[in-house]
């Protein structure tokens, strides 16, 4: 554990100035991921700039009925927010399915989005890992990869993104607002996280020094009927083996609106666009749900230990959609 300096930023611009000028500086949110990495030697920044106390700690309703979620809002507070629970239940459910009460009380929105993979080799500095040490190799490809990716991986990295919240945000087509040395920009959730390709060290498309200030949700009435289903090794406090965030609107037995994102299967929250296409405008039936899930998972390339994720994801998608239909009092 390398010694570091700790400072508190005064406002977002000050934070950016403090980090952008120092290549070895890092933002500190709730610290539930970064501090572990400091101890483990996975990260060794020389300077921490605490952004958890900036005035980015509010959830605000937008004029158009959407929401603006401050980057420093704690996961517990966001999950409990009445608008979130009412208008975007999938987001509240995803947050509550993550980590533990204590961790959610500390974790921030931005920190959650930018938490790093739980790949065991990545977290163990005595083993190689392309993400931690570019070019050192990826022992997971032929190693203990039960929890790792089945979609969109590369020979250089097969890690998964661990966040539950991010999966819900992907299904909701959220925008991420960031502030950099050259000003503010908005990044659609789908473009925030990357697939590993031949540059697995880069988790996201953020430029060095960019600060996440907010996450914005456009209004989506269909999302009132949405759900998060997390399949995991124990009832609580475990990362997803696979997870499904789904929004479903059915009218007269026909799918009007559907959004599906998967967690635990790829280097980023996986938007299941093929499945959505297969469903939109079609009859809402259990067989149709299953066929759509299969269409999405046709591209799966399981590793030596995780072939089970394919049927697990298929069944989880099907069951989640079935559940949403049931909740709407319709039959599937």
């Amino acid at each position, binding site marked *: *554990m390398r010694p570091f300096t700790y400072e508190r930023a005064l406002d977002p611009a000050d934070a950016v100035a403090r980090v952008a000028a120092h290549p070895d500086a890092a933002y500190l949110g709730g610290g539930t991921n970064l501090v572990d990495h400091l101890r483990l030697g996975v990260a060794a920044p020389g300077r921490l700039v605490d952004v958890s106390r900036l005035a980015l700690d509010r959830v605000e309703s937008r004029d158009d009925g959407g929401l603006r979620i401050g980057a420093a809002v704690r996961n517990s507070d966001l999950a409990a927010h009445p608008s979130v629970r009412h208008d975007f239940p999938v987001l509240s459910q995803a947050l509550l399915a993550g980590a533990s009460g204590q961790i959610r009380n500390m974790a921030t929105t931005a920190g959650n989005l930018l938490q790093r993979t*739980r790949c065991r080799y990545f977290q163990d500095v*005595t083993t190689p890992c392309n993400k931690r040490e570019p070019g050192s190799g990826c022992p997971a490809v032929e190693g203990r990869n039960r929890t790792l990716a089945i979609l969109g991986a590369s020979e250089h990295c097969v890690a998964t993104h661990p966040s539950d919240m991010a999966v819900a945000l992907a299904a909701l087509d959220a925008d991420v607002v960031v502030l950099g040395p050259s000003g503010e920009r908005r990044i659609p959730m789908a473009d925030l996280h990357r697939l590993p390709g031949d540059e697995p060290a880069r988790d996201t498309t953020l430029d060095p020094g960019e600060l996440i200030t907010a996450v914005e949700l456009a209004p989506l009435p269909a999302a009132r009927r949405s759900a998060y289903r997390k399949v995991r090794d124990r009832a609580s406090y475990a990362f997803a*083996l696979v997870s499904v965030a789904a929004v479903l609107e059915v009218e007269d037995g026909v799918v009007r609106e559907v959004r599906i994102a998967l967690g635990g299967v790829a280097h980023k929250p996986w938007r299941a666009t093929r499945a959505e296409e297969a469903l939109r405008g079609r009859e809402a039936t259990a067989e149709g749900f299953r066929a759509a899930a299969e269409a999405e998972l046709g591209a799966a390339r399981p590793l030596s230990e995780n072939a*089970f994720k394919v*049927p*697990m994801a298929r*069944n*989880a998608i099907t*069951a989640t959609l079935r559940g949403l239909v049931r909740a709407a009092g319709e039959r599937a």
Partner: protein
Amino acid sequence: MTLTGTPPAVGTAVGPAVGPAVGRGVRRLDGRVKVRGMARYAFEQLAESPAYLHLLQSTVARGRVSDVDASEAEALEGVLLVLTHLNSPKLADTSDGEYTVLQSPGVAFRGQIVGCVVATSPEVARHGAELVRIRYDEHPHDTRLREDDPDLYAPDEVNASFPTDTDEGPVEEALRSSAVVVDQRYSTPMEHNNPMEPHSCIATWDESQERPTLTVYDSTQGAHGVASTLAKVLGLAQQDVRVISPYVGGGFGSKGLPHAHNVLVALAARTLPGRPVKLALTRQQMFFLAGYRTPTLQRVRIGADADGRITGLVHEAVEQTSRIKEFAEQTTVVSRNMYAARARRTSHRLAALDVPVPSWMRAPGEAPGMYGLEHAMDELAEACGLDPVELRIRNDPPADPETGKPWSGRHLVECLRVGAERFGWSRRGPTGSRRDGDWLVGFGVASSTYPGNVMPGSVARVRYGGRGHYAVHIGAADIGTGSWTALNQVAADALGLAMNRVHLEIGDTALPMATVEGGSSGMASHGSAILEACRRFREEHGESPEPGATTESAAAEHPEAKEYATHSYGAQFVEVRVDADTGEVRVPRMVGVFSCGRIVNPRTARSQFRGGMVWGLSMALFEHSIVDHRFGHVMNHDLADYHVPTNADVVDIDVSWLDETDLHLNPLGVRGIGEIGITGTAAAVASAVHNATGIRVRDLPITPDTLVR
């Protein structure tokens, strides 16, 4: 299914009192200080200007340290010492490979201690450790346990001094002529104990007197054992090593014996005489250095006649040990006397691998062994078309099959009957027949067992302090079980006093010798010593002693114990729900009924049984130390990845026991309760999962991927 006879009385929350104190659900005497955070554990003991030690661990699984560059670390402000094999003091005794720390450049497993950095703060020590550059000559290693490993060998004996193999009667012939035969392989994975409090110590080496002395605050299940080991290894006189261990945050066997870190911290203290050196293992380090349960590969063959009476039983286990020290888990010993059989064979074979040293983990032997045996019994019941409860009742042996001795009290059948009643076992349906919405529902059952153990050698001291107050001294440990309280109850009754007149001191080698708090033997061993010391005290000093009157005594001889086969038994019933889509398993209900002799404190006993069952559930569904054999070490070495149950996984656990006193083993009538709860549970869960889904998962743990279709 036929279950006959009226169940005997069942003890529940608070059983009938035996003495005024014994048998009462007395609250833990140390509960208040613990929940208020005021109990000082080993690492929290006050020490003047302490130094902090951080380990250096090998990053190869086999080889030699070829070069150490400590210059950067030594230059760091606050670093007091970098200790490696190059500058370590020599040890006096190197007969035990685990305790032979820093005596050579050799590396026998990945994560082995190759040095340490001692500094004025834990942060500097940790940073310093990162700056030490160690190079290795790496040799090829082997960490994978295989049934067909050509180097498997039969140890001289297995843990707790049991014979390695037994062979009674023509078992192959019996199997050949059986109407029904089950022949299956079962496996249990490597598992790590993980008590909440990590292994920690503060060691101070004092050279200011004529002879050097060593004082160690340690988190241990046996202060005297730590002291005698350290004395031997370091070449000190036993009386010059004092070990103090007031509170212990769990051990589960991993603190039953000292480990390499105890020797290391003593070596560092010796190099910095007069300065207390503190060490707390990190959670990650506990996956290398604090013992673990070996993986087991078991093959069980059981033959039965058409009525389900066992004709022949073979239980074989293949397990691992380390190259530097042998530990042989006694996995198949349970099959030697659990059920009647005309012929039987049991065996253990070991592979010595480039792995850390395995050791005791709650119910070593019985926990994995009862999984294999009881799962096979479930399969036998299915093959015979018999109810699994009935199958066990039919094979209940009238006397110990191994020795022919009478049982001191075998009440397995009652446990099964009472449990079946409490659980509602008669509602169990055929395989795969019950569904509740998206959940597949199943019931399962298995037996539990654990031997009644008494360890000789403990001594207790009773001293009258005046004004009606008595001190009772014994160097025993309370590792969170409540034994401090329960031993106090024994002393109060034996002296004929209210509990608040008795002041029990434990956890210090300055007190009379006590055996390790392990093998579920604490109450039988330490309680019996206290009982006898109190009896003699009254004999010698009467009811109105002079202040200062003192009596010291070991437990009374109890020759009768040898004439009986003494085992505790239990029955566990489990309901599981398996998500039909995802294979996730939930366990809404567990019932455990135990027969363990007298229950001294129903409140703390209940926690022991329940805790054991929770751990059995954990073994069934979660625990699994995942090794990457290319590197040779456990990859999921923290509690985020090494799963144990959360509150949400543990729902309704119904614990009860038979009212019983077993005076054959010891005058207290107890047989021990610490470990039995974990035995059989995993087989009951597997049985229930099969009942729900029709799927036999024989390799633990039963994770969703084994069930999803």
